């Protein structure tokens, strides 16, 4: 491993942000909290163009939402004096929460923000300031998008490397929407995704409660729905169930391997009305064949566990080309688990934090501290 880089895991919780650091992904030091008593629902680690920038979507219950930015790998943060994300006055809308921050793979200066209420914002200055994407805001379906239990938000943004015109967002409860013109116009894209909770039409054009979408390195998409796990081989135009073989089709998150096509991790939750791990055993389910078959990975994860892994509280790192990808899980009871062997075994690296809302991991350049 290069001595000039370190692994960091940014852990956003209900009451602040913690940063875990490691040279070898086995021994970790933990710094924090940043923003104590503020909710950190979204984090991005921007390593494009040699950066070690950490962006955090922070919400103070008193002082509102903002984006905090660190250019030194999460050691110090600043925020813009002007509102980083704000709805234009003609919308007569106020920002509630920043649910997702996604660096664009095609433009090193672009960062996307998914927010509550349902909207998408675009930054062209590396994530300091964001503008409303009017194409989605003006969509005729928007008045009929319903909030999920956690709120109504664009919580997932998937951009496509090599195709800057292609964007996909997901929201609860509205489903998947796609743009093929860089966000100018959008179409619902939910064929095959079941909305079992609707009384008359279980396969509507939109209204599905998609919890998370992950993109594989070859462009294959995987979706964890509010009951239902799906794949798409046509960039989200249609979806097929891959829930067979899983202990349950409920859950909040799903991950795709950043280098190996067809490898996907699912974190099952027992049921909609039973939000604990199946058999009270915290676990991931891994597929190596795009969801055709699954196997449990739980070595190092606790039994008698009654916690839950939320939508963004799981991630992979990119690893190096010659080493396995890391897999990270954060739980609602404040533990973070890391695997350096692609899920075969886990170690608890942090414990006793507030409920973990988001985990993001990356290798960044080392910065010596004074």
């Amino acid at each position, binding site marked *: 491993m290069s001595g000039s880089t370190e692994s960091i895991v940014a852990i956003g919780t209900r009451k602040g942000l913690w940063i875990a650091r490691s040279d070898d992904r086995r021994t970790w030091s933990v710094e924090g909290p940043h923003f104590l008593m503020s909710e950190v629902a979204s984090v991005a680690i921007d390593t494009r163009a040699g950066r070690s920038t950490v962006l955090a979507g922070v919400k103070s*219950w*008193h*002082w*509102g939402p903002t984006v905090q930015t660190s250019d030194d790998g999460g050691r110090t943060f600043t*925020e813009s004096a002007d509102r980083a994300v704000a709805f234009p*006055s003609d919308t007569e809308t106020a920002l509630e929460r920043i649910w997702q921050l996604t660096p664009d793979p095609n433009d090193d200066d672009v960062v996307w923000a998914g927010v509550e209420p349902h909207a998408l914002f675009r930054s062209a200055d590396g994530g300091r300031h964001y503008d409303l994407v009017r194409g989605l805001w003006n969509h005729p379906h928007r008045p009929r998008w319903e909030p999920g239990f956690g709120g109504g938000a664009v919580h997932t943004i998937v951009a496509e490397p090599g195709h800057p015109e292609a964007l996909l967002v997901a929201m609860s409860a509205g489903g998947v929407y796609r743009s093929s013109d860089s966000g100018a116009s959008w179409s619902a894209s939910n064929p095959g995704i079941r909305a079992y909770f609707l009384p008359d039409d279980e396969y509507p054009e939109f209204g599905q409660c998609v919890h998370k979408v992950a993109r594989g390195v070859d462009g294959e998409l995987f979706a964890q729905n509010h009951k239902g796990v799906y794949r798409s081989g046509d960039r989200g135009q249609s979806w097929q169930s891959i829930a067979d073989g899983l202990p349950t089709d409920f859950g909040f998150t799903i991950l795709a391997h950043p280098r190996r096509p067809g490898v996907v991790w699912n974190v099952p939750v027992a049921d909609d009305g039973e939000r604990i791990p199946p058999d009270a055993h915290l676990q991931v389910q891994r597929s190596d064949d795009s969801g055709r078959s699954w196997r449990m990975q739980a070595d190092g994860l606790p039994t008698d566990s009654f916690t839950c892994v939320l939508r963004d509280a799981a991630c992979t790192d990119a690893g190096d080309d010659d080493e396995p990808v890391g897999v990270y899980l954060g739980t609602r009871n404040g533990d973070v688990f890391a695997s350096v062997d692609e899920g075969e075994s886990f170690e608890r690296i942090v414990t006793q934090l507030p409920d973990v809302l988001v985990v993001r991991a990356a290798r960044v350049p080392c910065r010596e501290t004074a």
Partner: protein
Amino acid sequence: MPLTPVRLILPGMLRDLAGGVSEIEVDGGGESQTVRELLDRAFSEHRILDGKVRDERGEIRRHVKVFVNGEDATRSGGVETVVPSGARVHIVNAVSGG
């Protein structure tokens, strides 16, 4: 006769964002200036405070209170509440949360 400036008193949680000061003296308002106008004037040199106290519609945030001479403006006229010359205006973080 010149008007007496309004004293805008900040809660401890916001003082670091105002350079460490506990209050801002605001002058230039008329006899009938509103809370909105007062905050516009006060925050013109402390823009970061504006985003903390008010949302982008100009409304006082849900868990923030503004008291004008001891009266809770958020329970009366809100940002249209008139601020008399020489008033003491407190910004308070509401006692809430968990």
